[in-house]
């Protein structure tokens, strides 16, 4: 167990070094490119999303094919704040309204944009809105005892429906262009290397915090109730547990973590649009967790990093191949690696003398 902790600590330390190495002069042999820092920053957010999904799926057996929706909602909430901060610096120079609203002929800010000029409010919304949506959908589904593939289909439909809704211009969220051209966050210009490093560290700290919190949760009796629900829900009900409440609790918590991941992601990539709701994104997240090893937190993080590394590499060498590889992973992992990479590593460890 101690070696495991050391490996994790080393992993975090290496990640933490990257922004510092980025500050070295370019001709220095240890210099790390801007590209690498920003892409690893993205992967860290994906790893948080993977942890959220693993908590619901790997531990409680709730296979959500719509977690990308919670991620995107978190991103939109922070995106609204970033849009408000642009102020009069937009192309149209309107003191209050973002460019797309001026273009669409809005005369005043829609009511649901109120409050988003405060960071704290926007950040809270990035957690509350996904949590609320998960609460409503989860309550209706779990109460009716909808489980397994039916629940997966419902969550997939949810993210698809949200994508179509956010594509509409009159939703007031920028239509298919979404939000972009962000200028600053908390007084820091978003295009500076300094801010990039701060966002990177905020994401890394969040990943560590979420990882530790999820670990602590799974070690409580509540974690064991979730595992029991995953394996034999009706038996848990016979023991007197209201499984609807237990599943709802973890589903809402998971959605909020996904929202946090989205909120950290958007300032780093500088754009959010309805494409983030696309069903493929949610399925990719499931592949990360399955590939890394569901039901283990390390597996979820490992899966997010490794599959995204593969994706980044493949989309640069052979862009057409990526979707085929993703599809193959989706089929091959459950057949060949039911316990994911972590299962493979553990098996290796056991066979060694």
């Amino acid at each position, binding site marked *: 167990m101690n070696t495991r902790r050391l490996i994790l600590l080393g992993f975090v330390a290496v990640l933490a070094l990257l922004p510092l190495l980025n500050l070295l002069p370019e001709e220095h042999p240890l210099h790390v490119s801007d590209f690498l820092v920003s892409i690893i920053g993205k992967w860290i957010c994906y790893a948080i999303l993977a942890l959220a999904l693993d908590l619901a799926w790997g531990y409680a057996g709730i296979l959500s094919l719509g977690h990308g929706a919670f991620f995107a909602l978190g991103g939109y909430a922070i995106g609204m704040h970033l849009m408000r901060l642009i102020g009069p610096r937009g192309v149209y120079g309107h003191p209050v309204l973002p460019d797309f609203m001026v273009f669409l002929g809005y005369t005043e800010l829609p009511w649901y944009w109120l409050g988003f000029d405060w960071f704290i409010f926007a950040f809270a919304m990035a957690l509350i809105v996904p949590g609320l949506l998960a609460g409503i959908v989860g309550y209706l589904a779990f109460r009716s005892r909808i489980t397994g593939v039916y629940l997966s289909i419902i969550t997939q439909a949810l993210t698809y429906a949200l994508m179509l809704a956010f594509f509409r211009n009159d939703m007031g969220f920028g239509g298919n262009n979404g939000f972009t051209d962000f200028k600053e966050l908390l007084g820091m210009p978003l295009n500076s290397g300094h801010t990039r490093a701060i966002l990177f560290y905020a994401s890394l700290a969040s990943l560590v915090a979420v990882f530790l919190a999820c670990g602590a949760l799974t070690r*409580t009796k*509540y974690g064991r*109730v979730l*595992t029991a629900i*995953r*394996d034999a829900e009706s038996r*848990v009900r016979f023991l007197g*547990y209201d499984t609807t409440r*237990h599943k709802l609790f*973890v589903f809402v918590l998971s959605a909020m973590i996904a929202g946090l991941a989205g909120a950290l992601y958007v300032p780093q990539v500088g754009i959010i649009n309805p494409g983030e709701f696309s069903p493929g994104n949610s399925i990719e997240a499931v592949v990360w967790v399955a590939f890394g090893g569901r039901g283990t937190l390390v597996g979820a993080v490992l899966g997010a990093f490794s599959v995204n590394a593969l994706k980044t590499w493949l989309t640069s060498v052979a862009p057409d191949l990526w979707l085929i590889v993703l599809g193959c992973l989706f089929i091959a992992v459950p057949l060949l690696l039911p316990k994911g990479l972590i299962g493979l590593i553990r098996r290796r460890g056991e066979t060694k003398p």
Partner: protein
Amino acid sequence: MNAVALPDGDSTTGLYLDGVSVVFDGFRALNNLSLIVEPGELRAVIGPNGAGKTTMMDVITGKTRPGAGIVRFGGRDLTRMDEAAIANLGIGRKFQKPTVFDALTVFENLELALKAPRGPIACLRWVLRGEARTRIERTMAEIGLTERAHDLSGLLSHGQRQWLEIGMLLMQDPQLLLVDEPVAGMTDHETEQTAELLVGIAGTRSVVVVEHDLEFVKALGSRVTVLHEGSVLSEGSITHVQNDPRVIEVYLGR
């Protein structure tokens, strides 16, 4: 819930069934069945297939409503209560197929079954205190799984899983335990141990065991009720029922 305390002495303690009938589509699954199990008594119920053993269990646990008759436990009218209320009254039922949680250890399985607040927050904040730990350890000793405490229950043998399931029922403090064919598929040695376990459990709680295996019933050394076509054919010690000519005719003699 209002307790219906009855003045009738016979029906205020233990399990009391009188004149119970259940009809499914014209088939009389239970026909004027009467049975009394005293508090702390161990009772074996045997009978050929279709004799009404499972239907009797279903009536007691509230899964099936009788068409006629009285079903009481500790003076409470069970025919007016639903399954959950009956379970909370202290009647636990062990089904044939063991369903323990394979991904949890023996200890954790029992901990989940322990009476404690059941909400998510309560479970998050749950800390295992001395008293609860002692109870779990006592139950583990009772079902003979102390040495397997920290093994995943998925690694247990079939017999041990059955015992763990009985242990999980015990954690819920039942006053009456209904056990359906506990030794099906067990080795001879496990069957013997199960008999010892059930004898040990009775005394502080009533236990009703439904079983086919006569050797096992002999090992229980308890009173035996023989059911046939939905009613009691014979009742008494195992030697008594074995020598009852009616029992020999319908059941043992074949």
